[in-house]
């Protein structure tokens, strides 16, 4: 019996964007509301996992031609270098800075080095989760 995946695939096409938006939202809202790098990374990874489930791996990887090991490494690099970066400004390791701007239209914008750190966390989580899943499934 051939399994019909049309329903799953069409829903996935739609839902993936909702999940990705949620991931982005969670990432940026983490500063003042529930969310943050770790959760955003996991949500992002689960969006990709959904794609893997709905379509086959080759198709998805053709659409997202990324080496997820590199993404994980990039994440670690980002997280560690935000820590090291603070040393260059003669403050202790991993000291974070925050600046706030009042921009027209957008309102109050806060820029913080924590965001960079969290981006590192998110990238690592995505990279590692997808790497593990790909590795195990390629072993089939």
């Amino acid at each position, binding site marked *: 019996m051939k399994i019909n995946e049309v329903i799953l695939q069409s829903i996935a096409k739609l839902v993936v964007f909702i999940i990705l938006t949620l991931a982005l939202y969670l990432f940026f809202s983490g*500063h003042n509301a529930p969310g943050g790098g770790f959760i955003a990374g996991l949500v992002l990874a689960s969006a990709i996992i959904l794609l893997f489930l709905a379509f086959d791996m080759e198709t998805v990887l053709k659409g997202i031609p990324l080496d997820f*090991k590199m993404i994980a490494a990039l994440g670690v690099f980002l997280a560690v270098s935000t820590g090291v970066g603070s040393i260059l400004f003669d403050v202790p390791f991993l000291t974070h800075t925050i600046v706030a701007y009042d921009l027209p239209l957008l309102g109050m914008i806060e820029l913080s080095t924590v965001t960079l750190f969290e981006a590192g966390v998110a990238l*690592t989580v995505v990279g590692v989760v997808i790497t*593990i*899943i790909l590795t195990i499934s390629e*072993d089939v």
Partner: protein
Amino acid sequence: MITVSYAIFFPFIVAALIPILYKRLSKLHIGWIVMTVPALLFIYLARYIPHITNGKTVTNTVYWIPSYDLNLTTHLDGLSLIFGLIITGIGTLVVLYSIYYLSKEESLKHFYIYLLLFMGGMLGVVFVDHMMLFYLFWEVTSISSFLLIAFWYQRKGSRYGAKKALLITISGGLAMLIGFLMIHASTGTFSIREVIVNVGIFREHQLFIPAMIMILLGAFTKSAQFPFHIWLPSAMEAPTPISAYLHSATMVKAGIYLVARFSPIFGGDLVWFWLVSGIGLLTLLWGAFCAIRQTDLKALLAYSTVSQLGLIMSLFGVGSISFNQELISAALYTQAIFAGLFHLINHSTFKGALFMVVGIVDYQLGTRDIRRLGGLMSFMPISFTVALIGSFSMAGLPPFNGFLSKEMFFTAMLKISELDLFSLDTWGILFPVIAWIASVFTFVYSLIIVIKTFLGEQSESLDKPTHEAPKGMLVAPVILALFVVGIFFFPNIVGDYLIYPAMLSIFSSVFAGEHLTHTISAWHGFNTELFMTIGIVILGTVIFLLLRYFKYVYKLFPEKWSFDALFHHGLEGLERISNKITSFYMTGNLKHYLSYIYLSIVIFIGGNLVYRGAFTFNFTDDANIHLFSWFLVAVIIVAAVMLIFVKKRLPAILLNGFIGYSVSMFYVLFRAPDLALTQIVVETASTALFLLCFYFLSEWKQDKKAFPFSIKNLIISVSVGVTVVLVALSVKSEKLFETISTYYENALELAGSRNIVNTILGDFRAFDTMLEVVVLCIAGLGVYSLVKIRKRKGAENLED
């Protein structure tokens, strides 16, 4: 402003860039880029010489983790400057040499990354002041040395030598770490300079001697002192530039640096004196004695390095007596440390040159076996000249720098034998005697290097035609040889500008400057030292001529009883025993592992609670339990019980996920949106992963027993459950200390964020998070390599 702290990290940064540069500049030999690193650092450090000569020092602090008192404080004084200049100066020459020694077919990327790692680590060792950082950099040098020895990892000997070096130096390093912790326990500081200031209190402490012995273990293993010297000859499997750099000029001198650095703390003590000078002399004698019997040129040089390191070590031991407060003439013995520092510089020049020449011979002829070599003088005149200069300097002949430091060595040994302290009035005479005998052996093996390789008949058995090495390869050894001669004629430049400030940094707590300068001169008139040298030449020549008969002496020391064999059999036995122990409990059955984990939870946590009677239950302040919570609990219990009776894997996985989602509902109920979100997403991802692994698992075997599970498992699971519940209830019921959550309440002021959970993760406890991210990445790569490497089974078998 570039400070010394950043200079340490310069090699590390370049090492990180090497892979990129290597790919981009594939036409260029990457060594040329690497060479700029030590060259620039050498110039940078050399600029400090005038400043340091005036007796000043440069201290610089980079704040790393101030809350743990971990700051990168670098301290540039005379002692570290000498080492810094040797590391960068010899480093430049070695890299230059390696450009010609290693062809582009070799995996140069790895070679130079390891080399730069070593260079950074070594600079760190000599510049940092904090003992923990000292240990960190110390081990960086051990590990990069391991990687470099095993550079040709296809060879069995390389892997064995690398492992041996690593095991011995790391064990010594661990002992040293224990020593540092002891110092910290008794003085309350990790800063070496602060300990020196408070040394009076530390001397009275009962941990003074244990800490000293532990630190000496670190120094002796690193500097290949007897009986730990066995790793150095095995390390000669490394490419020759590495042997010249790590295993003669720099890394093995780290132990000497350690002794010199800690001399103000331990110096003047009886135990320190006898251990450092005694082991040093023993190493000097034994290394020189063993060197004569070697047939491999590099092994010969290795033993000679062992012996020369012993010489320097013994000088530091003898000189340490000048820290003795009770001794009136203490200042006389500073000369020994002066001689030690001088010989350290000289040894780096002549031994570096010799190693490079041996590398050239090996490179040109494909062998370093002295039984097959001979008569190379007419083909390789420049190499011959350099070898001659290097060997004669090592033998202590004029007009080379080795003569000067050898004479000073004799002076120190003669002077110490006249002292009547530490029972030296009876044993003291051994010092000059051992020194003299060892120097005779040194003379013999120096002759062997020159005569057996370059003079005599050329052997027929060589396959390759012989001619001089490429010009570029000769540059580095020739420069070193020029130094060997140059230092002989102008020794006081070195003495005044390098050694004097180093003496100042060692002795600043005891003496003023005038006791620390010593004029080096080649001619002292006909004194005992000169007659000793003449005696060495005469007796050495006799032994060399009768070498065939002399070798019978070695029959007295059978191979079976050597330290090498002892190490080898000890290691094998250890591996056998630990293999037995490990295979006893590592059964490969996941169920067993889980039961170990659960049992230890019950025994250690539950047992501890019972033992201390820590169970308390207090329900007075509890809020009312909401009806919805009851409902959730009921659902979870039902799902959990169902999980036991499920017969198929798929429903089990789904039920497990169901329990996870239900738990996340609890977080929602208790107003913890962050936790709820995390739990839901983690549950989703892990269920997907479970389903994936499901494919690989075999059919769930059903027990045919009437009772569907074993009594043993039942007991374990019930006791774990009970323990966890009891712990949770006890924790809730008793408040032993003030809650820390109030600190985080003003997260907005402290970190500018309203989300406390994220502030803790990203700011307050960011260090934890950062390390977790690193661990996560390593775990992911671990899974990847475990699965992928298993697949490449056809890969070459490296196990023999």
